[in-house]
């Protein structure tokens, strides 16, 4: 009987929540069949099986949150349908999410009992040996007895003293564990794998990314209804936070505690932009395959303005503020499970059409809970389309460790006094900026907003 454990989905992730079981006890389980859906504070992913056989007991119920490494369920190993599939061929569960689209799932056709009848049971000793081979073979097995990520005090001490990257060492110990002698062999061989990236880079890679600039709108219930405690006649009910919700809360709190935030707003006449979009949207959908909204135009204008005011395209790393050359723009998405901020990397290099496609892609995947870890990491500035909620002014919270966040409010038609004293009906949009006042002053912030306004108004 093999035990499936909670994998580590990304650095610094310590626990995960079972969103749904996709296999039930007795079901036939093939290699890489998704067993369950897991939500962590960073991503949601399906857990592919490393074993073949029959689904055994479910040890963690839907909605429960357990630590990385905790046993989730059991799989009675054995070849399915007479086919002696090698268990050791399990693909590396690399610690990254491996979402399998629902349509690709292979569902068991035969009833469980029949399948069991044709199952060749692997003897425990054999199974253990196979598991061990699998574990040492790919070095990253998430299966039971996997000790590739357990480091003894001796190993930790050696790695620290000699700056050895333990993840790069193939362990020879039980369950693929890296032993003291493995580390010493690497040291003796002189071929020490490069040490872990510098702390700053690490922080960027492992940043808490699902920061929420604004609260999700009321009524967007999490996909999993929060567990409710309390007696049936209780006048109150306690809300259990999902991992995503907890991370949002944590990041918001941190941002508010650490960063003195200032807020400012300009209004832009986006009549030209609205007309341009009206004119182009049908052709765009036809030619590009995605809906054209105001957001990609806005994001493009933000990118150009950030080039003019690079001090806003920055991140706190350690005690240091780093200005980034690349424009990796976070786009706040109010997904059902909570607010996530997928990052459009290299947004500054993209055209409006390119941005439209990329934004549509990450937004769609955010809603489908199919974001990969790299999709939500490393943003340097955040754009939030609060206008989609109907808002005309909002005060976003800086997406720590970034230093600035800008909102695109709802474009509304208003009578406006124009330069020639004439009053005309124009499409007006407010643009709000929250910024970390430690990093920059109102001069730069105001300059950035003015530049953005100028660009938005120039579009025709």
């Amino acid at each position, binding site marked *: 009987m093999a035990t499936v454990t909670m994998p580590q989905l990304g650095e610094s992730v310590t626990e995960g929540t079972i969103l749904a079981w996709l296999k039930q006890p007795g079901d036939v389980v093939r290699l890489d069949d998704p067993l369950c859906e897991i939500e962590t504070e960073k991503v949601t992913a399906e857990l592919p099986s490393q074993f073949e056989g029959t689904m055994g007991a479910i040890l963690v119920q839907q909605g429960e949150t357990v630590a990385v490494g905790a046993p989730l369920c059991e799989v009675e190993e054995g070849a399915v349908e007479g086919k002696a599939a090698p268990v050791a061929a399990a693909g590396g569960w690399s610690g990254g999410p491996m979402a399998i689209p629902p349509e690709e799932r292979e569902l068991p056709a035969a009833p469980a009992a029949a399948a069991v009848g044709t199952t060749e049971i692997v003897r425990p000793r054999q199974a253990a040996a196979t598991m061990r081979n699998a574990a040492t073979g790919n070095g990253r097995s998430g299966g039971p007895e996997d000790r590739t990520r357990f480091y*003894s*005090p*001796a*190993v930790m*001490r050696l790695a620290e003293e000699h700056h050895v990257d333990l993840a790069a060492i193939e362990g020879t110990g*039980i369950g693929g564990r890296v*032993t003291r*002698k493995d580390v010493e062999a690497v040291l003796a061989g002189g071929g020490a794998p490069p040490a872990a990236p510098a702390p700053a880079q690490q922080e960027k890679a492992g940043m808490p990314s699902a920061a929420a600039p604004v609260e999700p709108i009321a009524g967007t219930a999490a996909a999993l209804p929060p567990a409710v405690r309390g007696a049936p006649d209780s006048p109150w009910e306690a809300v259990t936070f999902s991992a995503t919700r907890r991370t949002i809360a944590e990041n918001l709190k941190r941002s508010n505690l650490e960063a003195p935030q200032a807020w400012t707003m300009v209004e832009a006449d986006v009549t030209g932009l609205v007309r341009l979009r009206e004119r182009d949207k049908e052709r765009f959908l036809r030619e590009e395959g995605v809906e054209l909204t105001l957001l990609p135009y806005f994001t493009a204008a933000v990118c150009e303005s950030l080039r003019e005011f690079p001090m806003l395209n920055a991140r706190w790393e350690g005690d240091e503020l780093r200005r980034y050359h690349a424009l990796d723009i976070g786009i706040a998405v109010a997904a059902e499970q909570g607010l996530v901020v997928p990052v459009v990397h290299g947004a500054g290099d993209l055209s409006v059409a390119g941005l439209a496609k990329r934004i549509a892609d990450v937004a769609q995947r955010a809603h489908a809970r199919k974001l990969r870890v790299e999709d939500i990491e490393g943003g340097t500035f955040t754009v939030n389309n609060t206008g989609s909620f109907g808002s005309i002014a909002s005060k976003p919270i800086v997406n720590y460790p970034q230093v600035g966040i800008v909102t695109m409010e709802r474009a509304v038609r208003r009578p406006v006094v124009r330069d020639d004293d004439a009053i005309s009906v124009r499409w007006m949009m407010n643009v709000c900026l929250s910024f970390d006042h430690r990093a920059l002053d109102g001069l730069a912030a105001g300059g950035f907003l003015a530049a953005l306004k100028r660009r938005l108004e120039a579009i025709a």
Partner: protein
Amino acid sequence: MAQASVIEAIRSTLDEELAADERMFILGEDVEAGGVFRATDGLAAKYPGRIIDSPLAESSIIGLSIGAAHYGMRPVAEIQFADFIHSGFDQLCSEASRWCYRTKGDAYLPMVVRTPWGGGVHGGQHHSQSIEAYYTHMPGLKVIAPAFPADYRSLLKAAIADPNPVLFLEHKRTYRMVRQELEGAPAESVIGRARVTRRGGDLAIFAYGLMLHESLAAAESLAGEGIECTVVDLLTLLPLDRETILEAAKATGKVLIVHEDTLTGGLGGEIAALIAEHAFEYLDAPIRRVAAPDIPAMPYHHAMESFFMPDAAKIAAAARELAAY
């Protein structure tokens, strides 16, 4: 010089010490006739009046020794089987071991209690027990348990010369099992020092008495499998040689402690704690113990005795797991 067994080394050492110091005498059951293991064979004739038969009362043997030591004598008491020493527990622990402390170091109590311990001789529950853990809990006492004849000799001399009470444990199974050329053999003459008897980089085994020999046999067979063990002969159980223990633990990162005594409350727990406390960052595997099961006494029947006692095969099995960890 011919090879000497453990019992021969003890007898010749007692002989030499009796000759060297007139204050020394031997007190115990049947010692005049040479004792059940023949440790005092021939000594009564050679040293008339200094090899004294006692009543079958261990409490009085130890009590009389304390009194004699107070009066300037150098008693070397023999408890016929360690299994029976506990009736003298109060004399040894509450009185003898505390004398120096009680007098703020003004007075000493030079006395040795020799006793055969351990199993593997079909001695059943009254002639096979390991008693060391009761006494290693007693600060003020020294507890010695050698494995090789040369160490028996040098440490018995050191025990007799020591100004405070020493419990000298002689593993009865080794009395005639282990022989050694005494001249030139490594011999520890300082109480409180352990010795590394074999060096290997894969794991460290800590043992004493008969189990030291079983551990060496296990290490030998493991070497054939490519597993190299360090084997430490603890020699003195109280006080423990922390330096040598920690050094061996740090050098290998994997620790196997072996004793014939039952597991719970055995000396292995103390050694494990010592290592966990002072060498934690060097550990590469959980500390393992191979010990007798928690059963009230060593059984008599051969099969049962084998089940109860750790041996080379059990030690090697644990060592293999540890090496593979």
